[in-house]
């Protein structure tokens, strides 16, 4: 069940009607049941995975939290939690990747293959809820959080349906108290939530799904000119932004309707001027998770300059692998890791601490860095590393601008215009909710335009979100 489907609309209307009528404990039970129903709609067999993960982490959390004086027991409980979560994730997501590569390696050196490819279905959103559950036990272990008292509350935290399959990856310290305590639904929450749902739906159905047609046409073609390859890359940059941030916006909007505040996951990432800035704006819930639980655990920047660079590169490499079991994702992670290392080395000497990015070259720097991000997206989207090389070669040796490229550019600009207008407003005012603060005429015009474009151009197929596969 995806947010951009009629089935979800019916589901949400029923759930929300009941939700508003129930007391707090009843609301939590309803959220748990409806979240399991929401997830089971894809494949009910995978409900067992969420339940097992939830049960292990709940027990581990209780053990870690209740035995503060016994470090050994706490370490064992944490190890059980981490091992079980990573085993589930590793098996379903990475088994075939490692098996296939090991087999290829063995074949290369002339040894017999002893591992074989298994027909494993990747459970939707496994990386998201696994990371969310892991943060819970890690936070308790670090003393940042007390264990959940009620299994119902904890299970609701793990499976909260607005963000279950594609984030934001919430921290227990942020979401769990909201589940545990009675929630208030305010008129402001309903209004701002409505905008977020609507804007997210627009980004997904109008921009991302339509750009996907351009992108798939070029990346799936036998041959493409440099011009269409470049345009497809730009189109993919906006497709993935709108697809993923659209889901996050809808998740935040739906949660607000239930009195729950989810974290901001995207903050106009293509307005970033450097890699550090980019990762403070793109998939914020994942980048902060990786920073807090991986980078800092590896030592962060406390063990000297070289070790800091190694930690940065390793964190981004694993971040790339988190996105998918393919070398293209590893290359994408490595590319961003390399950018971060180079930027940190440069910034240490040239950027004073606390400096604010502004000035006349700001837009030029944004555009230049956007192109570096696009280069990274080429690794991310390409079907193989060979295609990466071929498309890059075409851009520099066979650009060949023609009518098809001109038409593609016109389509790209037409689809992205509303996005750019809203983003510029958000950046100029420094608030993501700026569109809701516009005066009468522009606000009404914006709402009406979005409705008309959704009607006329929105994809109605209930297309899946790119990040579901992660």
């Amino acid at each position, binding site marked *: 069940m995806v947010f951009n489907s009629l089935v979800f609309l019916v589901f949400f209307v029923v759930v929300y009607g009941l939700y508003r009528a129930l007391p707090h404990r009843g609301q939590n039970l309803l959220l748990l049941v409806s979240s399991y129903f929401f997830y089971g709609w894809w494949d009910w067999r995978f409900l067992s995975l969420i339940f097992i993960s939830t049960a292990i982490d709940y027990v581990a959390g209780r053990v870690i939290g209740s035995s503060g004086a016994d470090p050994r027991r706490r370490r064992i409980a944490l190890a059980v939690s981490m091992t079980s979560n990573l085993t589930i994730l590793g098996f379903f997501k990475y088994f075939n990747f490692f098996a296939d590569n090991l087999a290829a390696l063995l074949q290369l050196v002339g040894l017999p293959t002893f591992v074989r490819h298994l027909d494993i279905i990747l459970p939707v959103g496994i990386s998201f809820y696994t990371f969310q559950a892991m943060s819970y036990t890690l936070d308790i272990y670090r003393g940042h959080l007390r264990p959940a008292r009620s299994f119902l509350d904890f299970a609701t935290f793990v499976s909260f349906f607005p963000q279950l399959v594609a984030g934001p990856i919430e921290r227990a310290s942020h979401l769990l108290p909201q589940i545990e305590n009675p929630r208030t639904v305010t008129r402001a929450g309903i209004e701002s939530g409505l905008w977020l749902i609507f804007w997210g739906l627009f980004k997904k159905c109008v921009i991302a799904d339509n750009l996907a047609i351009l992108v798939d046409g070029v990346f799936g073609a036998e041959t493409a000119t440099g011009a269409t390859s470049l345009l497809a890359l730009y189109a993919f940059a906006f497709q993935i932004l709108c697809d993923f941030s659209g889901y996050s916006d809808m998740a935040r909007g739906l949660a607000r309707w239930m009195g729950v505040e989810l974290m901001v996951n995207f903050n106009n990432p293509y307005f970033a001027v450097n890699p550090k800035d980019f990762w403070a704006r793109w998939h914020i819930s994942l980048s902060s998770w990786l920073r807090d639980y991986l980078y800092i655990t590896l030592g962060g920047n406390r063990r000297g300059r070289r070790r800091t660079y190694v930690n940065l590169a390793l964190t981004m490499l694993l971040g790339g692998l988190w996105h998918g079991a393919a070398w293209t994702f590893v290359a994408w992670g490595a590319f961003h890791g390399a950018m971060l290392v180079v930027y940190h080395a440069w910034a240490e000497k040239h950027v004073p601490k606390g400096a604010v990015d502004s000035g006349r070259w700001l837009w030029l720097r944004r555009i230049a860095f956007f192109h570096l991000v696009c280069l990274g997206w080429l690794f991310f989207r390409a079907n193989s590393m060979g295609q990466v090389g071929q498309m890059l070669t075409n851009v520099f040796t066979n650009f060949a601008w023609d009518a098809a490229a001109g038409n593609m550019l016109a389509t790209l600009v037409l689809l992205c215009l509303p996005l750019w207008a809203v983003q510029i407003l958000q950046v100029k*005012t420094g608030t993501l909710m700026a569109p809701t603060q516009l*005066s009468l005429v522009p606000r*009404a015009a914006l709402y009406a335009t979005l409705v008309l474009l959704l009607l006329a151009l929105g994809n109605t197929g209930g297309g899946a979100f790119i990040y579901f596969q992660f």
Partner: protein
Amino acid sequence: MPTPPLHSSVPELERAFLRKAWWLFPALGALAALAVGGPFWAWVDGQPLAIRWAQLFSLRAGAAALAGLAVWAVWFWGLRLRRAKPWALLLAAGMLVGAEMLLRSPLAQTPLWLAARARLDAGQHFMREVCYVRLEEAAGRADDPPAAILVGSSQMLHGVNVGKLAALQPRPVIRRAMFGMAPLKALAMRAYVPFRPGDVCAMYLSEFDFTNQEPFPFDWFRPYASWRTLPDVMRCVPKSTAIREWRHIVDFALAATTEWWRARDFIRPLVFRFWLGGARADVEAAPADLAAAAAKARGALRFSDADWNAFRRYADLATAQDVKLLVFEGDVNPAIYSAERTQAKEATREKVSAFVAAGHGRYVSLAEQALDLGPEDWLDMTHLTPSGNDKLTRRLAQELAQP
């Protein structure tokens, strides 16, 4: 010197924009008028743009510039309104109603369907026909004498030469035959068939139209959806189909409500082929693999109750409007005849002829038609060649010429 703040509030930003860029509003108004005058039609037709800048100083451009200034003034005035009141939602609703009325008006209908037609691919026959029908509908039916209206599938579309038919008998001929138009689809499209008292509705029906039909072809219904026909269609569809297809019924209802949804399949090509023209190929009906088509056509036949119900409803509604039915029994290439098909053909003949004869018009069986169609008259399994077309057209004209 104090550092300017990094961000402005939204109202501050709006005020600054309106003060600095006030000239943009009349300029955009004048440019819009210029575009509508000439380049717009070139773009609609997929032709190279030719701009005549002198028209920027015409009366129309001046009026459009003033309209632009009015927008600027209303925007400025709107800055004073209190935010708590739901004016924005009301104004947005008003804008949506205005946009709906605009899209339904001939001012937008003609360029929309022309532009869509100019951007279709060679194989998009159905969409091309929709553009044709919607353009005719936008133009409206002339104040002419009672007409012969051709309704039916591509068998009718390819089987009858409209020009020749008009020349061979006194009635004007209106074409409403479409690819795949079985009776349920014909009923769904009824709002776009301009019946008038005294008209004759000519149909070409056989077991081919009443068997193996899609249960609820919503994508076919969409461009013709109307609240005038939706209840009729729903009455014809079995309840089990209605339950199974509830999502598509919502789609149908939305299309019946707003032209922006109804025309969406035709607005999308405008975005995806913004600068590209279409492929203006002649309509070809012959499928590439005749053997495969023949094998498929010889398969099991499943009678469609929905299409039978729809035919009866269609006939009743036509009769109520004083429109006479002229139903020609349809045929298919004898190469796909089978015992099952022959049986279905006879059963359909019996049902349809009895129903039509009961006060709805005239039924002309294959035996009565006596067209004597040979192998050379069949283009493929279901469509006629020009020679077959000539035979059917003349026979139909003969029937229409009778008082």
